[in-house]
């Protein structure tokens, strides 16, 4: 049983041991090699999951849209990703004549690298993590901003106005949605008292003196906002304005083809997967869970989150760009800010540890009570925000309609005259 639970840990220890003693490398070299192997493993995992995900997504979306989806290549079209891969490889790799080649060629690599870099801190099982940064969350967000650079490079390098416009749009979107993401991750950090993903998971794991409440129960609102902004960050539908064909062809990767395009594609999926991993770590308790071994748990949770992504993609229409920004700046950011402050207050007013209670005063409560209070506050904020937004929207619509009416009347008068 234990062997199954700690499978990954055992394997990694074995590999490390192998390199160090059996092959007898110098410590420096051993260190390098272990790192290299870990990196390779992670990357392979990401790439494979990318292949799998393309297939799954197409199937799921097809089902949602009452289609069959890929079904020719292999049984149930299982080999479809492979076929796509071959197609990608064999396609001609074109480069615009006026492109800034250096930048143009670097862009896909950069985006892929940044996408993969996220996996360095995601804990798959106790002790199985690329590196346990004590600022892991912060790191994830920071790395996310790296892909912005890559997109700008792509847009600029391919020297094509659609690409450039797409890049601008994307960057605006990514930068914008980083703000609510950060704000809501902060609430989790507040609750946990640490920025390390491991600590965050431990805070949600059942242990003596720790009920192991998933944060999504404590912080439903941050979970929701994080999900939304996560989708926006990965540029998936309904926020896939960066490749709104009808408006800007294919956005920043208009000019890319073949393997480079595949890299962008990979970047997108790997990012999405990373976001779902991070989400399940932050809000669903990561690898924490009964019976099943931890790596199964986190994979399940991530899969669940990713399914939500696909579900949304299959369901929702694409939002307009102004709506997208309005949603971010006028709704998510203010709401998250208010929520952040309230969460702080609640945590100070209803501490769960004696030390905090003595430090600040406030009334000592059990974790579950605190959870209920937090959830109540969150939902209250959400409700208020929604009502306000609805009212504003109604007023706006009325004004618009009046204007239209007036214009109609004017036109009629003009026609008469």
């Amino acid at each position, binding site marked *: 049983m234990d062997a199954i639970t700690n499978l990954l840990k055992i394997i990694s220890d074995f590999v490390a041991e192998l390199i160090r003693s059996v092959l007898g490398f110098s410590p420096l070299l051993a260190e390098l090699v272990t790192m290299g192997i870990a990196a390779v493993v992670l990357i392979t995992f990401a790439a494979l999951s990318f292949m799998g995900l393309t297939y799954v997504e197409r199937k799921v979306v097809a089902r949602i849209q009452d289609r069959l989806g890929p079904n020719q290549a292999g049984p149930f079209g299982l080999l479809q990703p492979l076929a796509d891969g071959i197609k990608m490889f064999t396609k001609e790799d074109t480069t615009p004549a006026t492109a*800034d080649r250096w930048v143009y060629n670097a862009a896909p690599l950069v985006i892929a690298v940044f996408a993969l870099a996220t996996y360095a801190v995601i804990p798959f099982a106790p002790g199985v993590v690329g590196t346990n940064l004590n*600022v892991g969350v*912060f790191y994830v967000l920071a790395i996310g901003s790296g892909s912005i650079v890559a997109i700008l490079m792509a847009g600029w390098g391919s020297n094509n106005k659609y690409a450039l416009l797409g890049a601008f749009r994307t960057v605006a979107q990514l930068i914008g949605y980083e703000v609510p993401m950060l704000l809501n991750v902060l609430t989790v950090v507040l609750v946990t008292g640490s920025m390390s993903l491991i600590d965050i998971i431990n805070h949600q794991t059942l242990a003596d003196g720790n009920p192991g409440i998933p944060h999504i129960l404590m912080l439903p609102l941050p979970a929701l906002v994080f999900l939304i902004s996560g989708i926006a960050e990965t540029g998936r539908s309904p926020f896939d304005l960066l490749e709104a064909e009808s408006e800007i062809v294919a956005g920043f990767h208009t000019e890319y083809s073949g393997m480079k395009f595949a890299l962008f594609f990979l970047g997108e999926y790997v990012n999405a997967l990373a976001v779902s991993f991070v989400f399940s770590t932050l809000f669903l308790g990561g690898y924490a869970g009964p019976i099943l071994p931890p790596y199964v748990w986190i994979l399940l949770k991530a899969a669940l989150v990713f399914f939500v992504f696909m579900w949304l993609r299959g369901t929702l229409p694409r939002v307009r760009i102004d709506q997208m920004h309005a949603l971010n700046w006028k709704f998510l950011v203010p709401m998250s800010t208010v929520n952040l402050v309230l969460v702080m207050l609640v945590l100070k007013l209803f501490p769960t540890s004696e030390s905090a209670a003595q430090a600040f005063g406030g009334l000592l409560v059990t974790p579950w009570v605190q959870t209920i209070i937090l959830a109540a506050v969150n939902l209250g904020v959400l409700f208020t925000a929604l009502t306000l937004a609805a009212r504003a929207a109604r007023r706006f619509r009325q004004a618009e309609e009046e204007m239209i009416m007036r214009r109609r009347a004017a036109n009629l008068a003009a026609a008469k005259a």
Partner: protein
Amino acid sequence: MTLQQVIFIILAIAVIGSALFVVTTSNLFRGALMLIVAFFGVAGFYVLLDNGLFAVAQVMIYIGAISILIIFSVMLTRGMQAMIPRNAQAGSVAIAAALLFLILLLAFGPFRLVVDLSGVPILSALFRTESARVLGGVPWQFANREVPETYIADFGRALVDLNQFLLPFLLVAFLVDAVLAGAIYIARQRKPAEVIAEREAIAKEEAEELAALQPQPNAPTLPQGAIASTADH
């Protein structure tokens, strides 16, 4: 040769090289990209200094925000790129910068060297340097301690501690607010009508001033003296 040393040297080469590229290239966009590389290198240094927080902050702020801004402005000021990268004084500047680097190297570098001016006739008289002056190899008071586990928390507390950095912290916060407003105000796109109206208003004002400054027939006679002439300027 530890792994960290290897990493350090690689980072150093990357940082210095990309920095040199940044200040010499004529393609600003690439310059900006290399700037990002340099920033990354510095973040790496922070990691080597056992300060993950600032490494990540560096990535977040410098790469996530500042570089993006710079790239944007490079794109917005298009056509400003294919011009001569350096101005007339570049040569002298290069010499001055190199000199500065040399001085810093000698003053704070690892090698100790002794400057003895007591023999030199004029200088010794000028600067009263009876005994020799030792450069480099500064005897720092090393702490020889590990970074405490809680350094992030301590840092946070220090920032909100009235006796430490609360005041500067608040000031910086105000600064950021002001900058938000100011940047938006400065860079906002003004309608041509506005601009024209403003210019006209200014021109009108100036015309009035000129008209008013014509010497008046009964302007009370004042000695056209120092003060008067000062006033005219």
